[in-house]
Structures are given as C-alpha cells and as structure tokens.
C-alpha cells in the first residue's frame, strides 16, 4: 500500500516540477495609459496581461504584429523593453456580501482604509448578458421613495431607467435617494421577519467624479444608514481612463453576484457620459477609427452590453440599473444621450428651469417615461395616483397657454389650481425618501380634496404634516396599507377617518 502512496507522491512531485509555460512580449511604447507590445502571440482579447512590478493590463487591440493594452495601474513604473506575459485569465473582481459597506476601485481593491475585503469569490468583469430564456418580465416594484417617480414613472426590479439632465439638476440626488430608500425598506423588512421579504442591495459606481463628491456621497449614505447595504465602486477623475472605463463593468459583476444568487440589487452608473469620454480617450490612443464626435464605432455596444446585464432572471434575482447621463443645455438628441435612451427601458428627465423654479426633484413629466409602466406598480399606487401624470401634463399645457390671457373659464382655473397643488405636493427635499404607504396617504388626501381649502403654496407643508401625523400616530394603519398594498372600502374608511382627525388638528 505504501508503494502506491509513494507512486502518487512521486507523480505529484513530478507534476509540480513541470515547467510553466508563459507567452511573453516586450513593451515597445507606453503612453497615456496604453502600452504597445511586441510578441504575445497567444494573447486573447480582453485577457489580463502581467506587467513588471505587479502592474496589470488588458489586451484590447490585437493587430498582426503588435498588441495594444490598457494599463490598470501606475504607468510610470513601466518602460520600453520591459517583459510582459499573458495570464490566461479574464479580468475578475471580488464579489459577495463582504463588499457591502466598502468603497473599492475598479479592480475591487479597497480604497476606504478599512482593511482587506474578506471575499472568496470572484466574477469576470466582462460577461455576456443573460439570454432570452433566462429572463422574466419586470413586475416587481423598486420604490425610489420619490413621489413624482413612484407614482408616475414607476421602476421595476430588473429595469434599466435612465436619469438624464443638465449638470446641477439633481440626477445624483435621485440615485442616492433611491439607495437610501432601499436601505430603509430593507431595515423595515428585516424587522418584520417576513420570510418572503427580498432586500435590495445597492452598488454605486462613480465614474470620473471629483473625489470630494464621492466622499460627500459616502457621507450622505452613511448618515442615512444606507452604507451597510451599499458597495461604492470609485473611479474618480484622477484615475486613469482605463479604470474609468472598467469601473461600470466591475460594478455590474458585483451586482450580477446578487442576481445570480437569488437576491435583488440596484446599480447606479454615475455617469455614463464620462464613461463614454474615458472610452473615447482609450480608443483614440489605441488608434481605433473614430466616428461621430470622435467616439469609436462601438460606443453603442459599450453601453448596450453593460446595460443588458441588468435583468430579472427566472428563478433567481434581479439587477436594476439606474444609469445617469449628463446633457448639455438640455440637448437629449446628442450622440451618447440618444444611444442610452434607446437602450434603457425609460428615462427620468430633469429640467434646469424646473430646478431653478424650486420644483425639486425637477422631473419633467412630459419627457419622462417608464416603458415598464404600471406593471411595476403596486395596486394602491395605481388606485391613488393613476391619473396624476395626465393631470400634470394637462396642467403644463394649460399653464403655458394661460400666460397669454387672464380671462379663464372656471374649468381651466380649477385644472390650473389642481395642477399647482400636484406640483407642490411632489416637492421633496434631498436625501429624504418617502415610504410608499406615506406616499399613498398624501396623494389620497389630494384626490379627496384635503388640500383644496389651503393656499397652493402651503400644500407642501400640509403634506409634510400629514406624513408626520401618520408616522407618529397611525403606525398600524401604515403597516396595513403596506401589507395589503391595495385600497378596499374598509381601508379607505380608516384613511379618511385618520385624515379627518389630522384636518381637525392642522392649522395652516
């Protein structure tokens, strides 16, 4: 018996001494984060390349006699003539729950100073999106906590909803609010002990942003208690273009882990305009042919393959994507905005004019749409807010028309008055998402005319007062609305009674 064991040991020793084959190349030039390499005859597209001093890169251009690779690290450590070798691996990042509450770079390395990440599993950064058969239609809601969105432009789990607008219109705020709302819902769900409850984990990918902005976002999430459910993938403006190009794909890989393991996740790409710019830079340095606005021909595929990875899988979980695009002077017909609009399942358009008028979130109801529509809404939201979008659109039309004349008939006046109240009701401060049951109550109060006696400007304050009243005194009723998720006569009577009670105590 011992002879057999010796034989096995000898075989193992023989195998472990076996020569290791490496395919190598020599750096010919290094410039702007891109290396041109001679050799590497066996390298595959997107394969990781090992540079000296532990620096890694990715092969992006395979030509007849040279390889173009982006360097993911300190380029200053590399020089002409250095030897590089293939690794036989695709770029992978750590995944799993160990990443929650952490800030990592595009390669999954921690950048928050909280020590190493205890993750054992990795996922490839580039992955083919799930096919048709694996998918399921979007039908479960993902509440943003923003009244204007949840009631008029509902988002479902597995949907891709674009947030688009000029700079300084509150795009990031909407994304952060949504992340905070997921954390709030997760906490309520965990406290309820409901075994059917599915928490939503969030991934926030910051691309080409100022470090100070990323710190502010992390602080906002931490202050709201949402960081523990969130992974931050940071590729700030100071990072090289390769890292900025990779960060969304790394974030998607982290999100896919939740989706593949039967959980729900939300990913925010902030923003894909800067991502396209980083990719354009890489492509130009790699001397790829440039097209419109100097973007390479595959810039559409860049975003479509990224966003297609968000899905709701049959029998598994979901990955919801909120990509952000920054427009210039409200021009949604520019190249990158039209690309991403056509890929996503709808968009939330934010207008500078509305923002400056104090209507925040500055959601333009006319230009915003959710292609999933009411399939991703719970019944109570449909019941109380089903007609709001039409009413608000009518109001915008009439308001524009009413500017030219003062003599208006009673019906038009009442429509304008009602529209004004809806606008006021939807005003909401930043980082203050509202639970769906409280949204239902405040909108129900609007439908039943509880704000009609008030001056339009006082509607926002009244709505805040209703929410405070219900949150402090009618907790059982809110729980009932949440669990039933639909209005019946009994529930309606209870809400009316509670609203009457509020009205008797409220002094405008």
């Amino acid at each position, binding site marked *: 018996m011992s002879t057999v064991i010796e034989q096995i040991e000898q075989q193992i020793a023989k195998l472990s001494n076996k020569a290791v084959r490496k395919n190598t190349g020599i750096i010919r030039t290094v410039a702007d984060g891109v290396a041109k390499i001679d*050799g590497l005859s*066996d390298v595959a597209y997107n394969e990781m390349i090992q540079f000296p001093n532990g620096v890694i890169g990715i092969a992006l251009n395979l030509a007849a006699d040279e390889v173009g690779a982006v360097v993911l690290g300190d380029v200053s450590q590399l020089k002409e003539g250095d030897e590089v070798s293939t690794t036989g691996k695709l770029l992978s990042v750590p995944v799993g729950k160990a990443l929650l509450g952490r800030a990592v770079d595009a390669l999954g390395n921690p950048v928050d100073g909280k020590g190493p990440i205890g993750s054992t599993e990795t996922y490839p950064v580039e992955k083919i999106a799930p096919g048709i058969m694996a998918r399921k239609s979007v039908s479960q809601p993902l509440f943003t906590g923003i009244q204007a969105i949840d009631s008029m432009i509902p988002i479902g789990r597995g949907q891709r909803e674009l947030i688009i607008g000029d700079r300084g219109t509150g795009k990031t705020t909407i994304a952060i609010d949504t992340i905070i709302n997921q954390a709030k819902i997760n906490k309520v769900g965990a406290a309820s002990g409901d075994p059917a409850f599915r928490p939503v984990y969030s991934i926030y990918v910051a691309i080409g942003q100022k470090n100070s902005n990323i710190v502010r976002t992390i602080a906002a999430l931490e202050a709201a208690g949402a960081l523990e459910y969130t992974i931050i993938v940071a590729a700030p403006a100071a990072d090289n273009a390769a890292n900025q190009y990779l960060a969304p794909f790394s974030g998607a890989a982290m999100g896919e882990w939740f989706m593949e393991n039967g959980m729900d996740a939300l990913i925010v790409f902030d923003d894909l305009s800067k991502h396209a710019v980083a990719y354009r830079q890489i492509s130009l340095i790699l001397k790829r042919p440039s097209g419109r606005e100097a973007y390479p021909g595959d810039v559409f595929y860049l975003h479509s393959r990224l966003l297609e990875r968000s899905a709701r899988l049959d029998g598994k979980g979901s990955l919801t994507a909120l990509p952000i695009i920054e427009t210039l002077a409200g021009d949604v017909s520019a190249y990158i905005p039209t690309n991403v609009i056509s890929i996503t399942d709808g968009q939330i358009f934010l207008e500078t004019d509305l923002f400056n008028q104090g209507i925040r979130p500055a959601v333009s109801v006319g230009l915003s749409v959710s292609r999933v529509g009411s399939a991703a809404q719970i019944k109570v939201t449909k019941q109380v807010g089903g007609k709001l979008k039409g009413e608000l659109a009518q109001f915008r039309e009439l308001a524009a028309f009413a500017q030219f004349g003062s003599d208006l008939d009673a019906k038009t006046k009442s429509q304008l008055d009602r529209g004004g109240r809806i606008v006021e009701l939807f005003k909401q401060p930043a980082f203050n998402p509202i639970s769906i049951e409280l949204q239902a109550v405040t909108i129900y109060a609007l439908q039943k005319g509880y704000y009609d006696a008030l001056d339009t400007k006082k509607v926002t304050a009244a709505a805040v007062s209703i929410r405070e009243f219900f949150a402090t005194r009618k907790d059982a009723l809110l729980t009932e609305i949440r669990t039933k998720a639909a209005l019946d006569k009994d529930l309606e009577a209870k809400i009316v009674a509670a609203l009457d009670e509020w009205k008797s105590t409220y002094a405008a």
Partner: protein
Amino acid sequence: MATGKPQIQQLARQLFKLSFVDGRLSNEQVAGVLAYVEKTHAANAVAILKVYQRLVAAEVAKGSAVIEHAGPVADATLSAIGTSLSQRYGRPVTTTAKANPSLLAGLRVRIADDVYESSVSGQLAALSESV
C-alpha cells in the same frame, strides 16, 4: 513607393511573405529582398527594412531556443530539449545554452514568445505572487 506607416508595414509584410520557400524562411529569398530594396532606392527603405527585420527576427526566433541554466547542463539534456521543442512546434529547433546564475537552480527555455520556466527563481517568484 510606400509613404505612410500603414503602407510601410504592408510592404514589409509583403516582402516578408516573399522570403519563404515551402513554408520555411529562405536565406536566398531574404538576400533577394535586400537586393531588391537596394536596387529600387526606396524613399523609406530604412523604415521598411526595420519592420522587415522585426518580422524576420520573430520568425528566426521560432526556430531557435535559448536554454538558460544555473548549473552545468549535459549535452544530452540540451539535445533532448531541442528534439522535444522540434516536435512541439513542428519545425527544426536549434538550441543555444546560456549560463544564468540568477536562476539559482533549474532551467528556463525561451523560444519565440514562449518561455518555459522550470527554475527555482521562477518558483520563488510564483510563490511570492500567490502569497
């Protein structure tokens, strides 16, 4: 004659293809190519020949293996490696021995872009990467 970089590369590749006889690089053909370039007085002759040289050097390297060793190596070992590489690459491979004490022990064989590492220094490097 070729003016831009792509044209230079294309011409050098064409000349490189002409340097083969029965799938093998031929010394006579290479000499013929050099004579042709000299005769035509090409404006970018230097640039074309540099690209051509790189292509020829890469091709020559496919048939020549450098065996780096830390200690003494028997001739039989060198020839065994040469035979094995000839079989693997499907072409005659000549071997050249080169002493390299930094390997500590073992061998490193370099043929074209491929490196076969079976040295102590290589194993230590792999170990340090995995830790």
